[in-house]
């Protein structure tokens, strides 16, 4: 048996140490989720060094039971076993899905069959997704939004719509009487430990931060909006959909989310707009274009311009710079009919941050075909940047006129950035 297999077997043995019963997390509230210690990659984009958990919960009130979230489909057996240990199916009045991704909705179809009387509650933003998950099944669901409540007799579930954390459908559910926030993926992490609670499990700080960086960071503006709703809550416990249950000092994790959602870099440009220019250059031609563009932007004033050779740095800090910048210009030579790999490596990493609405531009030198500029422009549009000024290409060594065009491109970017562009009237035919 290899070391990895041995470790996985140990983790599975630890997982089995939790009985098939629900685990009480507060009076009348149980964890009924599943442990997945063998998982090593989640949603393709995340490494999971010690697996994950799919957390679901049961809340018992004097007038019925609510189930909050389910598990990935292949863990349904464990989920139902734990559910049956703390409630009967005919007691279930409410099923709440805080997030419809399949790792939380996998057992939903079967649960709806076993508890047909239960009312399903999802965010009003989740409706198209529910239809996409449960094709053709007739569903009786209740769309809810912030302020809506479900009464379970002596207990009340209160919904907070928190879209884009990390899907449009995401919401949190607050159990008022116990101060428990069922937070969905918010405050979650991929960390599998059968000891379950944050004051009992191993050190999961890295997993918490890593999860934020990959799942929440692209949506940090939405995180800040959600925190406005979450911070005033009298929290006693956070019950996320992955990773440890946060019963010890739950407010620490709320504070940490606010810290993580702040700018990663102090903005040295203060009130000025910022343009970052990145380039790769084999013989200095694309570099000369980048320098001309930067000089043109700088000349117009009001814009702080920075110039970087992509080959001279690592991708991650460049992504941090771009996240904070107002505009981005990318220069790539065309080699074998394509933009070059360092440029694609940078561009493919920008999904980790929000670049929507920033101003973008492309430029570059080429030998005989020159596709790179258009490809980079298309990628920038795909990333939802706006490209108000067409890019510049130059065959091999840029001429004085071509460098002047780069300079003009920089000037135009500066004018757009500072709101000084004059209104133009054009015919659609000119746009072809």
């Amino acid at each position: 048996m290899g070391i990895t297999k041995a470790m996985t077997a140990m983790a599975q043995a630890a997982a089995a140490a939790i009985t098939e019963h629900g685990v009480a997390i507060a009076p009348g509230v149980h964890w009924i989720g599943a442990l997945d210690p063998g998982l090593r990659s989640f949603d393709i984009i995340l490494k999971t060094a010690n697996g994950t958990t799919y957390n679901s919960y049961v809340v018992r009130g004097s007038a019925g039971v609510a189930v909050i979230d389910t598990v990935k489909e292949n863990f349904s057996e464990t989920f139902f076993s734990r559910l049956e240990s703390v409630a009967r199916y005919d007691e279930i009045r409410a099923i709440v899905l805080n997030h419809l991704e399949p790792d939380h909705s996998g057992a939903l179809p079967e649960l709806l069959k076993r508890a047909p009387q239960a009312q399903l509650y999802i965010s009003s933003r989740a409706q198209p997704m529910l239809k996409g998950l449960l094709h053709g099944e007739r569903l009786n669901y209740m769309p809810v939004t912030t302020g809506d409540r479900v009464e379970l007799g002596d207990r009340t579930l209160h919904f907070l719509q928190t879209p884009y954390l990390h899907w449009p459908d995401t919401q949190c559910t607050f159990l008022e009487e116990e101060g428990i926030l069922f937070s969905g993926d918010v405050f979650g992490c991929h960390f599998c430990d059968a000891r379950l609670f944050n004051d009992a499990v191993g050190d999961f700080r890295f997993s918490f931060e890593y999860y934020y960086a990959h799942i929440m960071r692209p949506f940090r503006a939405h995180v800040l909006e959600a925190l406005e709703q979450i911070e005033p809550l009298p929290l006693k416990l956070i019950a996320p959909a992955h990773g440890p249950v946060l019963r010890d000092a739950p407010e620490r994790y709320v504070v940490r989310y606010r810290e993580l959602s702040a700018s990663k870099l102090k903005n040295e440009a203060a009130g000025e707009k910022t343009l970052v220019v990145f380039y790769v250059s084999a013989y200095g031609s694309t570099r000369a274009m980048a320098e001309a563009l930067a000089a043109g932007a700088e000349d117009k004033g009001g814009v702080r311009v920075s110039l970087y050779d992509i080959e001279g740095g690592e991708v991650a800090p460049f992504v941090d710079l771009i996240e904070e910048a107002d505009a981005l210009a990318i220069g790539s030579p065309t080699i074998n009919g394509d933009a070059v790999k360092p440029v694609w490596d940078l561009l493919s990493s920008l999904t980790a941050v929000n670049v929507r609405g920033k101003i973008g531009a492309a430029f570059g030198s080429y030998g005989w075909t020159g596709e790179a500029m258009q490809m980079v422009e298309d990628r920038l549009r795909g990333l939802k940047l706006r490209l108000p000024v067409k890019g510049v290409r130059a065959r091999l060594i840029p001429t004085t006129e071509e460098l002047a065009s780069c300079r003009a491109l920089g000037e135009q970017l500066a004018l757009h950035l500072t709101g000084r562009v004059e209104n133009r009237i054009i015919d659609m035919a000119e746009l072809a």
Partner: protein
Amino acid sequence: MPKAQVTFQDVGVTVTVPAGTRLIEVSEKVGAGITYGCREGECCTCLTKVISGHENLAPPSVLEDQVLKDNFAPRHHRLACQAQVLGGEIVVKPA
């Protein structure tokens, strides 16, 4: 063919277009900040504020109307991938 004038306020460009043109056909080409996701009227990414000339756009389809309602779109907001220009003058900007 009847013409219309669409102004994309955020980039300061007015485009003369034939009647029947959808905003999506023009906005990206002028570099306006209206961004697109599905491009099929479902995801609401391209929600656009119609500052003036709302009456110069074809009324929303049943599908567009539903998507606008589902996403709590304010009055005089349209999906740029769906909204079709009829004539006159229209001024838009990203929502």
